[in-house]
């Protein structure tokens, strides 16, 4: 006899609201005339994320182990990540609203007559918005999932829409479609690892719940071989999502190929979701054997920081540069996991928010720098940008300085606090490599600034599109947050300090 599972709808509401918005969007595609669709979809997406965000705030100090039987844990840590994802997604969505990011008709072959006809008819792929909302719902579930199946479902729900929207760029469509296919293949590959790891963990503990795995791991004298193998394989799925070396190789190709607004969204929100989930899994499930897996993570963190920073030096494409920068940041963020302490979690939360807004802002600016054929990503052609549009160049410079960790930007505080947490937990090696890598990384951030501010504009220097109101708002929000969190970080730290509860 089956009993109905009890669900706490109040606590699950943020996820359900976003899912509802996504379904509503699907209906809009079916029943609303083409002329109104884009506008309605934008409104639905923004209102949905804003409502869900407000709901998260209203429940931010609730804690529950049984929100959905015992598959979902609602607690401070999880809700903070959800709030961060929704806030970042809201700002990222503002950049989607420029109508020329996406292929008018994704099914048309690149360069075909159908495509030309679709362009002529002014068709728009408004399905983007429900797809993004589906992805967000997966991201919201990921950091609060408390058993392996829920984790896997969340992972797939967040991944599959991303595979699709990666392939929808309006310009350079072949590159975009290639990136989408690669992302899909490698994503499926990494999901297989994740699933296999989950199976081993089930074999080890006889349970899918993180709490039961922890209990089994804590038994002294148990044979840990399945546990440890399971941890390694499962980590692959997670590290793939955050783009840690050597599971990073999709990142440059996908970041470059995807429509730039999507790249910003992906780079910021996916990281929050994946790091949120990772922290929960490791502290709730695997803390008992931390001395075993920590060396692996230290090694990965070191090669990620150093590899990302070094590889970025030779890039000439601004989106690829930012992709490598995002890889480096994944390495820095892993320091928070390795610390596995309350300070580690707090500083990781701060880091994710600081990095997220700077990333969305930076990619947002990339969408504005163009010539007659669309976005210009070749760095050499950004020469002298500051002379033409000082405002845009200044904002971009601020985001880069924040990535580089220059004081008085959010990035400095983030880096300093996460390294301090790692150092306090005794992991000196990653601090030393981290500081050195950020010194190397700063080199290419400053090179971009030099190109923008100190090089004379050449003849084929690009123009800066006049941003719409929504886009200007988006850049302004990112700019202000990056600056304010640098000067007065306690606004966020005080919040983060109170939201470090994690349901065991």
């Amino acid at each position, binding site marked *: 006899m089956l009993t109905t599972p009890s669900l706490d709808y109040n606590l699950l509401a943020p996820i359900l609201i976003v899912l509802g918005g996504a379904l509503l969007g699907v209906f809009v595609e079916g029943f609303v005339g083409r002329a109104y669709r884009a506008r309605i979809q934008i409104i639905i997406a923004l209102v949905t994320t804003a409502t869900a965000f407000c709901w998260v705030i209203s429940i931010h100090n609730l804690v529950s182990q049984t929100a959905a039987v015992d598959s979902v844990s609602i607690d401070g840590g999880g809700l903070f990540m959800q709030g961060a994802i929704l806030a970042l997604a809201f700002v990222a969505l503002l950049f989607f609203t420029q109508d020329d990011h996406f292929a008018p008709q994704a099914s048309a072959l690149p360069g075909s007559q159908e495509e030309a006809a679709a362009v002529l008819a002014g068709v728009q792929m408004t399905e983007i918005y429900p797809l993004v909302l589906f992805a967000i719902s997966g991201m919201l579930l990921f950091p609060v999932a408390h058993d392996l199946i829920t984790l896997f479902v969340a992972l797939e729900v967040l991944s599959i829409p991303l595979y699709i929207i990666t392939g929808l760029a309006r310009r350079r469509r072949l590159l975009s479609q290639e990136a989408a296919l690669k992302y899909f293949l490698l994503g499926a590959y990494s999901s297989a690892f994740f699933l296999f790891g989950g199976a081993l963990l089930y074999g080890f503990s006889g349970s899918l719940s993180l709490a039961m795995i922890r209990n089994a791991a804590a038994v002294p004298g148990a044979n840990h071989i399945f546990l440890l193998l399971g941890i390694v394989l499962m980590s692959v799925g997670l590290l793939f999502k955050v783009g840690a070396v050597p599971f990073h190789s999709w990142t440059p190709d996908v970041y470059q190929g995807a429509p730039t607004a999507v790249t910003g969204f992906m780079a910021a929100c996916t990281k929050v979701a994946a790091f949120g989930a990772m922290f929960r899994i490791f502290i709730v499930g695997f803390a008992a054997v931390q001395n075993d897996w920590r060396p692996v993570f230290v090694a*990965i963190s070191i090669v990620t920081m150093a590899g990302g920073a070094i590889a970025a030096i030779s890039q000439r494409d601004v989106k690829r540069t930012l992709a490598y920068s995002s890889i480096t940041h994944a390495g820095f963020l892993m320091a928070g996991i390795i610390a596995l302490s309350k300070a580690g979690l707090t500083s990781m939360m701060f880091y994710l928010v600081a990095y997220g807004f700077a990333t969305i802002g930076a990619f947002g600016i990339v969408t504005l720098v163009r010539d007659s054929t669309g976005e210009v990503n070749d760095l050499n052609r950004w020469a002298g940008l500051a002379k033409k549009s000082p405002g845009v160049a200044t904002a971009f410079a601020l985001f880069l300085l924040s990535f580089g960790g220059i004081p*008085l930007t959010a990035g400095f505080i983030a880096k*300093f606090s996460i390294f301090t947490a790692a*150092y*306090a937990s005794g992991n000196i090696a990653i601090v030393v490599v981290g500081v050195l890598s950020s010194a190397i990384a700063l080199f290419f951030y400053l090179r971009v600034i030099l190109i923008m501010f*100190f090089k*004379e504009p050449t003849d084929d220097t690009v123009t800066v599109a006049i941003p719409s109101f929504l886009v200007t708002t988006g850049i302004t929000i990112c700019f202000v947050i990056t600056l304010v969190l640098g000067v007065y970080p306690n606004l966020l730290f005080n919040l983060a300090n109170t939201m470090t509860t994690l349901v065991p």
Partner: protein
Amino acid sequence: MRTSSHLVYLIALPLFSSALLLLLGRIADKWGHLLATLVSASAFGVGVSEFIAMHSHTGANRAATQKLFEWISVGNLKVDASLLLDQLSICFVLLITGVGTLIHIYSIAYMDHDKDRRRFFAYLNFFIAAMLLLVLGDSYLNLYVGWEGVGLASYLLIGFWNHNPTYAVAAKKAFIANRIGDVGLSLAIMICFTQFGAVSFSGVKAGASHASPAALTAIGAMLLLAAAGKSAQFPLQSWLGDAMAGPTPVSALIHAATMVTAGVYLITRSNFIFDASSTARLLVVTVGVITLLFGAIVGTAKDDIKKALAASTMSQIGYMILATGLGPVGYAFAIMHLLTHGFFKAGMFLGAGSVMHGMDDEINMRKYGGLAKLMPITAVTFGLGYLAILGVPPFAGFYSKDKIIETAFNQGGGKGIILGGAALLGAGITAFYMTRVVVLTFAGAKRWKDGSHPHESSVLMWGPMVVLAIGSVASGFLLSAGGALVNWLQPVVNASHAEGGKELMNPLVVSILALGIVALGASYAIVKYRSVPEVAPENVSIFTEIARKDLYQDIFNDAVLVKPGTALTAGLVATDHHVIDGAVRLVGWVIGEVSDVLRKIQNGYVRTYALAMFVGVFIGALILWVVTA
């Protein structure tokens, strides 16, 4: 400790003015330089009033703090954004705002023809704000904010005339040396936090009294690395000469009087660390001695007037660093030399700028000659600075430099003789190259082409030079009369005359020795440069050749920093080609090569990526197996 609510204005005024000038853009072109100068002068006014306020208090109440807000609070790490004005920081505040204001005034005329003069002044104001934050921060983290700020300002100002590509390279070189230093500073801060749970000066001081010697030595070494990067000390000295590409007022303010002395400030401020670790002190004096000789020798072979002065700056800061490593009594003398040096070196740089201004921006001293008659004020003010740096009594350098030499000898034993002897030798070489500069520039027959018309600069330019020259004459006496500065700094650095201890060398003997060596160096230069060829002679001794090559500093950098790296990336034989260009290009090149290899791995094939992932899993499992086995 009292609280003061005015400290913040010191920083806020120039910061606000800088932002205003940058944001307003061309609208502010007409009056931007005046606003910037006025703001700098008002900051000086605030500084003076604070100085007077300090005098009206006694004991611990002399120092004042102002808490701005709680800055960071995560876990155990709590840092306030607070300012601390004590006996040490006020010296710097007055130097920065005072000399800064003079240089603002000078720049009004010097940058008159530059269409970006407003932007230049905005950067200058920004520099003043950042430098004041550096010396007023009450914790290492606040200091670090200013530290990065002055680095940024220096970077912007060196590259100000960026139409010349070599200037951009110079800016880059400065940037890399500074980054290496910054790595040292951030590591020092993190060690402090983990060892003492605090990053404020008072917190670290309290913790340092019962810390392990190893930790203190590590912190000291890291702080020294930071100081070496910022103050152009061995082995990170190579950027200072190239930094002379910036406008001359910048060289005077940032690369002579203030920013490059930040390293001396850092070590003096951290006296509680260095007092407790003799190993760290030994490192400090070693770096100081090497640099003071290094800079002096490089200075003898420079034909570019600004580079000669830059080498001299490096050498003089070497004296200061040496003094900070000599124990409690040394700090006060280091600061005294820093202040007198601020006057005479800034004055000489402004003099050099004035000469360049009159000579159509010619910088090669071999094309000067006989300028004293045509530019009398410049010649006299420069001459006074010259007498000060030589240490001729009663000019400023006599009081500060002789004290350092004397303290070095007083270390006693072989160490005292080596340090003191090196400092004496340095004084002799200094006399030689400074005399050379003066003779080549102001004396002898004219060697310039008939096309140029050397002329005295406007009052806006020679006014500040005269003020600084007065400082070069009087500051030494004023600071040392009755042990004024030593007593003033006593609460911060715990120094007193009594503690100076054994007087092994009679001060009079030291002075006579020093004067004798100085006279020797100077007269050799006068004899040698009676006639000056317009082109640097080719058939010179091996020593001149070495000095001209900056003692092979670039090649040294190459060998120490780069070769080990290249050995790792096997088969890269093209090293020779890169040797001459020095460390910067090579470090960049090595990283670039590795980067290229990484780019080739990133070949775009999914199968390669999947293989990389698989190998990653395999290695991860392997590490796990090794760890658990």
